């Protein structure tokens, strides 16, 4: 038994980043213990099984954009418009999410370049209340699209969300047409809108801006769909097919253009932006 195996075996069965000194992470897919540094150097993709781990907005922006990008200010929105409370107050849930996240809500946008190609990139962060789409996410999406219109550059959105933020009730639902107003404006302005679908992208997010891109890219293995699998199973009472609602499955069914591993995302986006230049007016 090598010392590595020994150390590994002596570690408790813990989720990633909870091991002493955060030296190790465990792959949620193949359970392999990995050096945190090795894992992060590999863009939070498991080098053993190619599992694409969930990453925060800053990590994503750093991976995709050239150095020196500028974060767009998070728009101010009405907080807790419904004074919502379930087992906990919504304001309390927000506070907790903010304590663990450098950004005030689940959508962060930045303007800069990708291998020299100018773009606004918006990233949805699943770690912030499941990436759920509420007024703050909608407003940040609108602001990102507006900035792209101003800069006359492409808008790239990296999606990740369980769906709408239920604590904002109907106002979360209204973000669907709201975002769609902006994807239409981008198209009318002849600017590219590219969606990168990451794990998981479901519900109202999929049924609005995540499916309205000029080009759809999905990360390998990402869960992408409209209805949740449990809901589908309860409705039809059938076994779900293998790989159902996974990136490769969506690709096979014509819903995404390509499945691209994380290490190739940056160059893929840059290549696409190179082709998708605003057409000269006739």
């Amino acid at each position, binding site marked *: 038994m090598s010392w590595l195996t020994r150390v590994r075996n002596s570690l408790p069965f813990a989720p990633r980043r909870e091991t002493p000194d955060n030296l190790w992470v465990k792959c949620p897919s193949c359970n392999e213990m990995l050096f945190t540094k090795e894992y992060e150097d590999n863009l939070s993709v498991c080098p053993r099984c190619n599992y694409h781990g969930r990453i925060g907005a800053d990590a994503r922006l750093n991976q995709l954009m050239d150095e020196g990008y500028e974060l767009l200010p998070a728009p101010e929105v009405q907080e807790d418009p419904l004074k919502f409370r379930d087992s906990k107050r919504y304001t309390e849930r927000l506070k907790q999410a903010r304590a663990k996240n450098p950004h005030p809500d689940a959508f962060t946008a930045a303007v800069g370049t990708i291998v020299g190609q100018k773009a606004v990139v918006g990233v949805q962060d699943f770690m912030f209340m499941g990436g759920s789409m509420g007024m703050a996410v909608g407003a940040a999406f609108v602001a990102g699209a507006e900035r792209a219109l101003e800069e006359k550059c492409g808008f790239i959105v990296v999606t990740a969300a369980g769906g709408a933020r239920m604590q904002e009730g109907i106002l979360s639902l209204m973000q669907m047409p709201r975002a769609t107003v902006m994807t*239409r404006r981008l198209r009318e302005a002849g600017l590219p809108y590219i969606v990168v679908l990451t794990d998981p992208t479901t519900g109202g997010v999929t049924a609005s801006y*995540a499916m309205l891109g000029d080009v759809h890219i999905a990360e390998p293995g990402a869960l992408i769909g409209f209805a949740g699998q449990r809901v589908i199973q309860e409705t039809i009472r059938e076994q779900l097919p293998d790989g159902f609602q996974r990136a490769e499955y969506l690709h096979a*069914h014509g819903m995404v253009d390509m499945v691209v591993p994380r290490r190739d995302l940056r160059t893929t986006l840059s290549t696409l932006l190179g082709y998708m230049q605003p057409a000269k007016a006739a």
Partner: protein
Amino acid sequence: MISYLEFEKPVAELQARISELRASAEGDGIDITAELQRLERKSQDLLKSTYASLSPWQKTQVARHPARPHFLDYVNSVFEDFVPLGGDRHYGEDQAILGGFARLGGRKVMLIGHEKGHDTQTRLKHNFGMGKPEGYRKAIRLMEMAGRFGLPVVTLVDTSGAFPGIEAEERGQAEAIARSTEACLALPVPMVATIVGEGGSGGAVALASAERVLMLEHAIYSVISPEGSASILWRTAEKAPQAAEAMKVTAQDLHQLGVIDRIVPEPVGGAHRDPQVTAEALAQAIGEELDALSGKTARQLRRMREDRFLGIGVGQPRRRLR
């Protein structure tokens, strides 16, 4: 015979007493007219006061009442000369979302909406009003055609949500909904949407991204069903009444939030107690809205729609708590 909802029990009991009294008086030759009138008035007052203060959960029951008028009822009671059009030209014909040419008091319109069905057979035929991708794609086709022929689009929304199934996912349920929402926003003609029963999530938004959004008095409109929200946030569907309350699903709440523009009154006791009166109120409201929009250019209409949605919820931004 009307089916009573749980909270209407006192009214049902009164009505049962009235029937009993009537039956027992028959042949007795006793004049009970005055007593019957008194009880009828009492029953009517009780119904009125009950319906004046329905809770969100009670309204959910009313909105889902099996006898509540649905799309095909309104086709005959609100509109004339309906010419149904079918198919998405890609895959199939979805009977959960119906549409076609129609007239509303002389105005030519494109009418589109969800149909839930009213008995086992028709509910299965219409898939309980849960649209599939081909249904939303048919709606898109009809909206685009309405634009070309200058016909205002009128939608009647009544769905618990888009259908959650394997094939629906495979055929791109999410994309179909997103494109249908987009088709609404792109219309060069007026669009008036009315939530007549349940406005369930994305499946409703796809037909309700209009510049004027109306709701029947006891209809509900929400991001997720009260049961769904309860089972996720409260971890039990039994908390649905609380979820309905917390999510603000009623026409009255949504009007206050600026999400809908107008509430269409229902007769005392709900739309199902007098479908004709409901139809007249609906015809009048939609007609007035269409007339108010009739002079507007395509550009103005799109702008109205965009401003409407971009403006929702951005009334008073408050400082973010940290």
